[in-house]
């Protein structure tokens, strides 16, 4: 299995840059079908947003684990279904 790409949102948010969800969306958009994206965040608003957004775009949340101050989610871009 291909190694998941990694996006760390726990570092101080940019004071001038894109939103956390914007960064997730841009990273997800580069995934090939079947490829995974591991996102780490310490913000509950991000966790909610990633789950809800993933549902909307038909993505899969494969794993979710929480440690004090940090949540790790693994998303997968699904392969297109055979017609």
């Amino acid at each position, binding site marked *: 299995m291909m190694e998941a790409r990694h996006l760390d949102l726990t570092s101080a948010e940019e*004071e001038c840059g894109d*939103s956390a969800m914007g960064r997730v969306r841009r990273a997800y958009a580069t995934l090939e079908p079947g490829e995974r994206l591991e996102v780490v965040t310490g913000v509950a608003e991000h966790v909610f*947003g990633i789950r809800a957004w993933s549902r909307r775009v038909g993505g899969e949340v494969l794993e979710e684990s929480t440690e004090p101050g940090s949540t790790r989610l693994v998303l997968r871009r699904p392969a297109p279904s055979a017609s």
Partner: protein
Amino acid sequence: MTDYAHPEVLVSTEWLAQHLEDPAVRILEVDWDPASAYELGHLPGAALVDWQKDINDTVRRDILSRDQFVSLMERLGVTPQTTLVLYGDMRNWFAAFAFWTFRIYGHRDIRLVNGGRRKWFEEDRPVTEAVPVFPAATYPAQEPTAGLRQFLPGVLDILGRSDHGLVDVRSPAEFSGAISAPPEYQNEGARRSGHIPGAVNIPWAQAIQEDDTFKPVEQLRELYQSRGVTPDKTIVTYCRIGERSSHTWFVLTYLLGYPRVANYDGSWSEWGNSVGVPVEKPATEAPGSVPA
């Protein structure tokens, strides 16, 4: 919150939780990117204000007109007596911008949620995807409030004046001229980078704590006064497009009670693109030098 100069403009998430169904209150989520925030989930009863479409003129570069403001209030079922409670994405930047804009057009009772979306979600409070519909209201135009907005000629006039202060609330990288805008905001870039001469750099985030609530008043006072941003001066805040500087405008005006604070919403995306205006840049290359 009671030590702030005007604590009435700030509400806690706890207060808001108790007023979700208060008919005198209209809760507005002000988002720069509703698809990444409001549309995924918002506070029960909160209506969306789309910063790009609702708070700005979508053709020329300006805030919404007075007529557009009246239409927006009427569409949201707001009367001049309604208590507006604002919060939003991007850590309340755009909610603060809406606060500033609505105040310009004279709405009296506006409040900002201390900690905003982030604190609400952190506290695991209720969230919904349901979009409320309100009966349209009649909103007579109010008398605009003067002195809250600054334009480029006005900023040029105050350069070098000791009775005025300029606060650049951008990141140190933007202030120093290392960048003019991050790559994902190409349309906010400028031909020149650096800062307005005489400005002090106090990034907006220095006014908030880990949970996005505002710092206590004594810490805020120390933060600004230690950098020469004192209440005896007329203060002008700016950033790149005027939203982060609205946040600092809010802090100086309402939490510290400075009497004369204006937001220069043209900010760096105007100044850095203007011909002939002075720019301070620590590591300026010699004119005509060729980049390596």
